């Protein structure tokens, strides 16, 4: 019996970044990974910083004073925007994973719609949702405060 040895990831990280002839969803995949890594790095630091609330009001205030200022506001907004993208794209991925957004199987008689074409409106909808949350967050971060 033939045994698959898998395909080595010859392109390494470039395989993520270079979408090549793949479609729009390929770039969503890359951005999903990048935002995920950014959110994870922030989250680990966030656990350490916010743990000071368990010590005393002074420790909490000192921790918050260290992460205050325009640079931190912009950084926090980028985290918020990364969350909005990652969450909206994550909803899309779960719907596809569950097979709810890939369309019914059809006979491939030319001209036919590929599964990617069927999924495209969902991808566009997810990005519109992310953009709305980002705009609302931007209002809160930079205008209303």
């Amino acid at each position, binding site marked *: 019996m033939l045994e698959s040895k898998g395909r*080595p*990831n010859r392109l*390494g*990280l470039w395989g993520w970044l270079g979408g090549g002839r793949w479609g729009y969803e390929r770039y969503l995949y890359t951005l999903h*990974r990048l935002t*995920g*890594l950014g*959110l*994870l790095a922030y*989250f*680990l630091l966030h*656990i*350490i910083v*916010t*743990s000071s*609330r*368990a*010590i*005393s*009001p002074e420790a*909490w*205030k000192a921790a*918050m004073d260290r992460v205050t200022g325009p640079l931190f506001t912009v950084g*926090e907004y980028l985290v*918020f925007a990364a*969350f909005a993208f990652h*969450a909206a794209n*994550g*909803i899309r991925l*779960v719907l596809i*994973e569950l097979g709810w957004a890939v369309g019914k199987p059809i006979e491939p008689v030319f001209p036919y719609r590929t599964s990617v074409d069927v999924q495209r409106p969902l991808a566009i909808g997810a990005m519109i949702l992310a953009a709305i949350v980002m705009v*609302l*967050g931007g*209002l*809160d*971060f930079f205008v*209303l*405060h």
Partner: protein
Amino acid sequence: MMRDAKLWTWHVLAGVVILVFLGLHMAIMHMDAILGIFNPAGGHPVDWGNVVERGKSVFFTVTYVILLGAALFHGLYGLRNILLELNPPDWLGKAIGIVLLLVGLGFFALGAWAAVAAHTLATSL
């Protein structure tokens, strides 16, 4: 079910939990001027008065711990998948899994302690 298929299912389920509780967290902390929810002391959501009010709540304490566990698992399992895709040798792949598990357990212990200790501190004030 194979082990990785089970872990992947947990990864997706953790994503749904994060969507709900991190969505709530973001709404409270970063859309306060628009929504104004769960900040009974007024002012900024990170003002000590608001931190104490949320800390008193069993709901917030429990959901912080659930969110903490779900987010650590989701994030570190995602990182593990990304690193394993780079085809490390078997021993390195196993080492990555063990290191990420220990990192996850360490951060979970710190975050869970902070949530419970903050609840205890807030209710004693």
